[in-house]
């Protein structure tokens, strides 16, 4: 076979070829390369355009060419329309730099069909480090590529589905938040309207006892208002700091009484309770503090009202104590205020106790607080 090679070293490959063909002896490494199922070629970079000088049978089987059609040509005849120019450029750069390279590249057979070639190419240098050949092996990895493409397509589909679902959920959450704010806004406005209605009605009433009832009713509604004002101020809408609204509530009640001779001693530790329990707790505190002001400090009797909020053993404890006139036994069961406190305590599963202080009265409320709630710190 004359492939027009002139260089001595290129001839050497043919000599081994011939030797093998003739006698079955020779270089066992060359024999292995000729016989292996892996496609392999050798190119000679010292000849113009770095032509193939050796191709094994596996290469010919893979590409569909005859030996005579490949030896003496540069490998670029394997490229085709869909070959990535970037991959070609990487190979060219490796040849130029005399470096090895491992790369997947789309190649074409003689019949025009394409295959994914996992190319490995490395320079062969002599003992002085002078470049002699390039050695290249080819594996058809079309199947691997195809399943890779499938996996990638699956992944893309999956990611798209996740993104769609996420944006749906985001939109749903946004709608929910908007609705919550809208409802909150209306509840607040309506509470304000209820207060205004009672106030205006009470202005037009001359009877002092009816006026006093309306005033008590207004105070209860204002206690609810104070809770609601605090309710959606924080991002955590599910729970509520008792200390926050008790401070607002008591400060407001004492200031509204106009009694500058009464001090409020507030010792409030932050205790979070579920938002649903905030309104009954506020109403109870309102009754207890209002009662202390009304009955404990009747007339001109000055004094101090102590409000302590703390938690222990998973229970919220609220103490309302005054150093006023005091009372005998528990408060009259007939009053609406007392009924309200007792009913709300039952609802909260709270224990409530009226104790005689010396002087004054102490009311102790103790109720369970769920732990492990959302937003607990």
């Amino acid at each position: 076979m004359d492939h027009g090679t002139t260089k001595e070293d290129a001839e050497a490959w043919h000599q081994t070829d011939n030797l093998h063909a003739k006698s079955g002896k020779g270089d066992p490494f060359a024999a292995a390369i000729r016989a292996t199922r892996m496609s392999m070629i050798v190119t000679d970079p010292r000849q113009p355009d770095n032509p193939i000088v050796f191709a094994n049978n596996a290469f010919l089987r893979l590409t569909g060419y005859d030996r005579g059609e490949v030896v003496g040509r540069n490998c670029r005849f394997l490229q085709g329309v869909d070959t990535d120019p970037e991959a070609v450029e990487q190979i060219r750069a490796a040849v130029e730099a005399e470096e090895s390279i491992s790369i997947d590249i789309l190649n074409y057979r003689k019949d025009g069909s394409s295959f994914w070639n996992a190319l490995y190419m490395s320079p062969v240098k002599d003992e002085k480090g002078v470049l002699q050949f390039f050695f290249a092996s080819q594996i058809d990895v079309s199947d691997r590529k195809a399943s890779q493409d499938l996996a990638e397509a699956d992944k893309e589909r999956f990611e798209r589905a996740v993104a769609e679902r996420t944006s749906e959920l985001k939109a749903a959450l946004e709608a929910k938040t908007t609705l919550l704010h809208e409802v909150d806004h209306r509840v607040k406005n309506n509470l304000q309207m209820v207060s205004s209605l009672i106030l205006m009605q009470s202005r037009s009433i001359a009877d002092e006892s009816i006026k006093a009832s309306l005033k008590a009713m207004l105070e209860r509604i204002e206690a609810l208002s104070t809770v609601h004002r605090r309710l959606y101020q924080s991002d955590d809408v599910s729970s509520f700091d008792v200390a926050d609204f008790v401070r607002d509530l008591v400060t407001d009640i004492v200031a509204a009484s106009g009694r500058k001779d009464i001090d409020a001693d507030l010792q409030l530790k932050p205790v979070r309770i579920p938002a649903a329990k905030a309104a009954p707790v506020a109403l109870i505190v309102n009754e207890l503090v209002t009662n202390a002001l009304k009955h404990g400090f009747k007339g001109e009797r000055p004094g101090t009202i102590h409000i302590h909020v703390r938690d222990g053993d998973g229970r919220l404890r609220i103490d309302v104590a005054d150093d006023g006139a005091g009372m005998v036994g528990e408060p009259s069961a007939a009053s609406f205020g007392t009924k309200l406190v007792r009913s709300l305590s039952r609802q909260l599963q709270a224990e409530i106790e009226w104790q005689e202080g010396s002087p004054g009265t102490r009311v102790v409320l103790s109720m369970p607080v769920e732990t492990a709630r959302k937003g607990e710190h």
Partner: protein
Amino acid sequence: MVEPLKIIIVEDEALLAMELESLVEDAGHQVVGWATSSTEARRLVDTLEADLAFVDVHLTDGPTGIGVAQYISEQKRSMVVFMTANPKRIPDNFAGAVGVIAKPYTVNGVMAALRYLQEGVRRPPPVSIRPAGFSLSPHYKDAWRPG
């Protein structure tokens, strides 16, 4: 005696406006005008002398209270206090307003806020403690720092 305040109410709910007017007068101040929309509000502040305007965020022509507050603040003749159930809609700079009374307020809350604001308008900074239902804008928090 500190001079009483002249106040404009910008509020679309008639009931709330009426009630607020009674509270303002109970506290010894004077309501000089009431507007329910942003257009009315602008006309009022152009023609009236007032020390203070209480402005709701939601008016009959939409959430236009912020723009009204901005307009009044830029005129520099009256101070603005938001009065709203929707304090989250107020921008970070409060559109130049002094602060906000969050609805639902209590009678005492408004009375205490009026005392505090009267001091702030006539002899800043106020000496009273800032009432719980009243929040100051960042600018006034600085300007009215008790000192």
